[in-house]
């Protein structure tokens, strides 16, 4: 989570941004803004309706979950997102917007003058118009062209070439030649071409930059999940609070109920249950007793424990995972984007063509001035206007279309990589399933007892109680007034309804692996309530669609086989179970080694490395911070349908990009011989350039149309 700190007056406020997809009307705006402003610690809230974001300025003491809960109280589901305003990338976008605006202004004015020249202005008028064009164009090239000059210079200094080298040479040469023509009263000046070229190319660059701004990375959030420290027991009964960094193997620490472990260790005394969903993704707290191994980052759900530290700091399992993620992400950063691959072929070709035309004309007896003019025309006509727009326009339009169906694309190259995927790995908990237990047999409770059940469930923070509360509230049940409410650690909640003793807690008999809780009223027989982590509503239909698209899916889960099997059977998928984060990485590496491009869909912290390693990756919006930062794309809502929709759209995008490349190349095949023959006047260059760019943009816009 990246936070921008803004100073307002005396105190420093923190700005956090939340995605609230449900905002849809003016009253939502005022409800959220007015609902949040009176909250203690919140200075201001501003809804951005376009992006469905809420920016909250608040005191640093207020945590993100607190604000999230406040927004939830107003009736909106909110997901914290890295703040957009303070990213380093957005300043680059700002500079590009200004450069594009200047180039656009100049292109229009120079074109106005050029059209007059083409339609017959001659003599002094023509010279005057050329001179004014020069006055507009030269500062524009100096201001707007910097983006390309800098990048080209960087590449040249390292002995490489990129798309910006022919652009820079072309623009500078054209401007210099046109200035020479203007000063000597020559017939043609290409100022309009140079400036228009800059405008179109900057437009492509700008769109690309807008896409890249969405790409966020951050492994730092992983280590935040670890506790800050622990209470260390000293010889003779004393105890002292020690920060996590200073913990060392051999120390004995006290872990209270509800506390996260700060180090790996072995339980010495006490019995409890640990929520290790952070590491394994398993939803059910695991029972542990003396002698069992426990890991940093897991949370003690039951009774206090004494733990002997075996590994601390960088040696813990969770720190190891951070390293794994970092390594896994490196493979992806080596991915070469399709536009860059095209540029590698394109730049040398263009240079060779321009040089060839210059030499040919010289050899045929033309003067250096004439030869240079032709070479300039070749450079300007081959400049990758359409090529520079082909990819970014298609990607931006596709990202916009995806946004409408609830998918946030975080990385510009994500669509390219997603389109290539031919194998899918799903995590189970929280990905194929909703990741929260849902009561299965709530009907077993007679209607007159439901208010009592809600009264009991409301009193506990246990996940099963919370799930009961949600389900009952959804049914519109009002809670009964209970007296003597008491939560008994390790059992559950007891209370009295008038004089009748009621309880909700651990079943007397063991129910094996199944999630269950027992509800008792007076002397009546206990009602056993079963829970299940429900499969996402349309998972089966989505998997069928994926299969039809030629993507084979399977499950990689950190959960126990008994928990994975029902899901795998219901969805008819093969599954690997009990996998540690490293095992998931290995599974991906094996598939990649076999020539597959793996799309990883997962949510948990334990999926982080796999999400970073996959050729492409997606996470639900309910995913952990780590899952969200590691994934390329995030889909909102309970449905899995966006996964298939995203792949389909990604493939369509790449088809359009392919068509755009074909158009750009086809245009060059026609235009280059003309330029080579010296037939390209400024008028022809202007028509060719704008024509091909408009065709490419128009083709990309087809992506915005809804799928049938």
């Amino acid at each position, binding site marked *: 989570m990246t936070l921008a700190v803004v100073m307002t007056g005396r105190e420093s406020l923190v700005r956090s941004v939340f995605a609230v997809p449900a905002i849809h*009307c003016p009253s939502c*705006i*005022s409800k959220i803004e007015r609902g949040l402003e009176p909250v203690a610690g919140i200075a201001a809230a501003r809804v951005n309706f376009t992006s469905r974001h809420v920016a909250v300025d608040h005191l640093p003491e207020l945590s993100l979950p607190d604000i999230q809960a406040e927004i939830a109280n107003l009736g909106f589901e909110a997901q914290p997102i890295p703040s957009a305003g303070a990213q380093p990338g957005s300043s680059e976008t*700002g500079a590009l917007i*200004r450069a594009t605006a200047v180039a656009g202004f100049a292109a229009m004015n120079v074109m106005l003058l050029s059209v007059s020249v083409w339609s017959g202005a001659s003599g002094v*008028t023509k010279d*005057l118009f050329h001179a004014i064009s020069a006055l*507009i164009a030269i500062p524009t090239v100096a201001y707007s062209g910097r983006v390309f000059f800098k990048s080209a210079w960087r590449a040249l200094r390292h002995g490489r070439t990129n798309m910006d080298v022919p652009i820079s040479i072309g623009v500078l040469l054209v401007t210099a030649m046109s200035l020479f023509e203007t000063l000597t009263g020559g017939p043609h000046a290409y100022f309009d071409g140079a400036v228009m070229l800059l405008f179109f190319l900057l437009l492509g660059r700008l769109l690309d930059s807008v896409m890249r701004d969405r790409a966020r990375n951050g492994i730092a959030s992983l280590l935040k999940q670890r506790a800050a420290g622990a209470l260390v027991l000293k010889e003779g009964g004393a105890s002292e609070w020690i920060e996590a960094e200073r913990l060392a193997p051999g120390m004995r620490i006290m872990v209270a109920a509800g506390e996260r472990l700060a180090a790996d260790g072995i339980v010495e005394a006490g019995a409890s249950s640990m929520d290790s969903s952070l590491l394994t993704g398993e939803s059910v707290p695991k029972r542990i007793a003396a002698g069992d191994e426990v890991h940093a980052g897991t949370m003690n759900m039951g009774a206090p424990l004494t733990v002997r530290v075996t590994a601390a700091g960088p040696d813990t399992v969770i720190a190891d995972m951070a390293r794994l993620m970092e390594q896994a992400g490196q493979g992806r950063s080596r991915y070469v984007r399709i536009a860059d691959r095209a540029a590698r072929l394109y730049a040398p070709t263009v240079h060779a063509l321009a040089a060839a035309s210059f030499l040919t004309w010289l050899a045929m007896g033309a003067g250096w001035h004439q030869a240079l003019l032709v070479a300039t025309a070749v450079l300007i006509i081959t400049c990758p206007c359409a090529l520079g727009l082909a990819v970014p326009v298609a990607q931006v339009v596709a990202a916009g279309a995806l946004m409408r169906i609830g998918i946030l694309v975080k990385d510009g190259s994500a669509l390219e990589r997603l389109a290539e995927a031919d194998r899918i790995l799903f995590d189970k908990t929280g990905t194929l399933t909703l990741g929260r237990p849902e009561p299965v047999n709530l009907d077993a409770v007679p209607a007159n007892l439901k208010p009592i059940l809600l009264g009991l469930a409301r009193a506990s923070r246990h996940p099963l109680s919370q799930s009961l509360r949600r389900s009952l509230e959804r049914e519109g049940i009002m809670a009964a007034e209970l007296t003597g409410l008491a939560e008994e650690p390790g059992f559950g909640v007891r209370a009295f309804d008038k004089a009748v003793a009621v309880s909700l807690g651990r079943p007397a008999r063991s129910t094996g692996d199944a999630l269950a809780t027992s509800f008792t009223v007076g002397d009546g027989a206990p009602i056993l309530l079963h829970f299940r982590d429900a499969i996402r509503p349309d998972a089966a239909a989505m998997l069928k669609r994926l299969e039809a698209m030629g993507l084979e899916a399977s499950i990689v889960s950190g959960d126990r086989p008994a928990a994975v099997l029902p899901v795998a059977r219901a969805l008819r998928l093969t599954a690997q179970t009990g996998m540690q984060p490293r095992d998931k990485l290995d599974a991906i590496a094996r598939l990649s080694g076999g020539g597959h491009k793996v799309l990883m869909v997962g949510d948990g912290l334990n999926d982080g490395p796999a999400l970073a390693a996959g050729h492409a990756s997606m996470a639900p919006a309910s995913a952990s911070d780590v899952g969200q930062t590691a994934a390329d794309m995030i889909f909102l809502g309970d449905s899995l349908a966006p996964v298939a929709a995203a792949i389909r759209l990604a493939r369509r995008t790449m088809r359009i990009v392919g068509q755009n490349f074909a158009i750009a190349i086809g245009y060059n095949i026609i235009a280059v011989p003309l330029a080579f023959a010296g037939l390209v006047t400024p008028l022809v260059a202007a028509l060719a350039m704008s024509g091909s760019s408009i065709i490419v943009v128009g083709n990309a816009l087809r992506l915005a149309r809804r799928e049938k």
Partner: protein
Amino acid sequence: MTGLAVLIPVALLLGLSGLAAFFWAIRSDQFDDLDGAALRILIDDEED
């Protein structure tokens, strides 16, 4: 042709003032929430 001496500077000046207005608008975050601006007019400020 003397008209040109007036009209061209006028045209350029108008264009430049448009550019300046655009730069000002970017600087003061006018483009941050285009759809929201259209809806905020509908919020009734007096209902408090």
